[in-house]
């Protein structure tokens, strides 16, 4: 049996988790103090994911850049591909929070959306 020690990143509490694995199968998770912690622990050992935030250029807005994020978390190993996909993108103002900047980034099925009004 394998034991993996994790720190939950679901919220700033940072609960220390222990995930016990039998091969690929999770047999026990301890240390979490809320449901999100259990979900995180399960995901982190099977399919770790992250929200990715970045910026793209804006033309004609009150700022030159607009902040963006993946609407949902994407697989960890897609992070760098995701950021690369944002290279060279310029959007036109006005941009509103939630506007889709790039759909289905890096084939994840997740959209990049604006997080600021510009």
């Amino acid at each position, binding site marked *: 049996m394998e034991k993996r020690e994790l720190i939950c990143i679901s919220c700033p509490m940072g609960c220390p988790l222990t995930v016990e694995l039998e091969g690929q199968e999770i047999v026990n998770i301890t240390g979490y103090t809320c449901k999100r912690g259990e979900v995180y622990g399960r995901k982190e050992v099977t399919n770790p994911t992250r929200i990715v935030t*970045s*910026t793209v250029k804006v033309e004609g807005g009150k700022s030159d*850049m607009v902040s963006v994020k993946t609407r949902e978390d994407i697989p960890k190993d897609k992070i*760098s591909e995701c*950021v*690369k996909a*944002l*290279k*060279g993108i310029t959007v036109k103002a006005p941009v509103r929070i939630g506007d889709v900047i790039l759909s289905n980034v890096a084939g994840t099925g997740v959209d990049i959306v604006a997080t600021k009004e510009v």
Partner: protein
Amino acid sequence: MYDVIIIGAGVSGSAVARELSRYKVNACVLEKEEDVCCGTSKANSAIIHAGYDAAEGSLMAKLNVEGNQIMPELSKELDIPFEQCGSLVVCLDEASLPNLQALYDRGVKNGVEDLEIITDKARIREMEPNLTDEVVAVLSAPTAGIVCPFHLNIALAENAYTNGIDFKFDTEVESIEPIEGGWKLETSQGAYETRYVVNAAGVYADRFHNMVSESKIHITPRRGDYFLLDKNAGKHVNRTIFALPSKYGKGVLVTPTVHGNLIIGPTAVDIEDKEGTATTREGLDELSKASLNVKNLPMRQVITSFAGLRAHEDHHEFIIRELEDAPGFVDCAGIESPGLTSSPAIGKMVAEILREKLDLDVNPDFNGTRKGNIDLDTLSKEEKAALIEKEPAYGNIICRCEMVTEGELLDAIHRPLGARTLDGIKRRTRAGAGRCQAGFCTPKTMEILHRELGIPMTEITKSGGDSQLLVGYNKDRI
């Protein structure tokens, strides 16, 4: 062919240029850095010495006292901050009293006025409540003062420029050859010819001197580390407090600045590297223990530390003369402390040599008065309001620690020999010189430099050369 080329736009070179601009002359200042006041002149104690330190009969003593006497009037003409706050030399043991007396005697012989040895402890405490209780006596020199070395240097250069002296920056002199009727200077920006050369190159003055003369000189960069403390600490002492060298060591000075900060320093370490302005752990540790004379120094209020190099010539004397074996080459070398104080007198002395040799006529258009930048802090509420109404940029604060406005930045950029770098802005306006040390104003100041001068953001530098602040754009290397 120029009549005169001055090497170096530090305070000496700029003072020479300004005095020379009183005459009809075709002259130019060559400076290897991107701005005036980039070497020894920018990193020192910022004080105007009374003149009791230098050996009796020396040129140093003479020019110190002269410079000290010129400064009150000059600061008005050039509209720069100067305060005659006085200085005290602190004597901590009876055994050293004769040394204090010797300073007094030397000062009197040098022509320093109003010197006084004070032993009345109540009076000393009233003058400086934060002096150590161990104090036995002080030498008071009311004619000593404090000045902004940046503004002194900048104002001298600016006034010289508006009176017709040329300035070329980023121009490093590489060699000097005698030619018919003068000199040829090879520089990083091409060759220049001139009848006379003034060597005001600070720590590099020996290099240029030795290119043309068989009678060699040697200048040692003597590094001094300093602490600059927050304005909250600026009133800790009212005057410049010197230590009397004693069995406790040489000691360092503690002084208020004209801008209300407190300076502690300098250390003194002889080094080889003429660019070696890095502070050291040992130096800063030494300063941290500098509280022999002044008690309760608030060392937690340090906002920055820096180091400057004094141009120490082996004979510890100013060398200001036309060289016997190189006629047409005038040294202005070995200008270490009290160089800042002496600079106006140095300028006059060198200009007089040149006037005589070149038989210069008076420049009838010379205007020695210069209007400095507006310092909002010195204005009344009504004056501020009126100014902002006229020029709204004075209502836009860029540096919140020092309360510097966009109007002051624009003025610093667009006035003669204006600022082109972050440090240039800082020296002229104090934007970035405060307690956050440019954390907040850096992006804003860069944007204004970019907008006003058309320099791309990625080419804006802290202090010229390769000191760019930004290296590129997001994602440009992925």
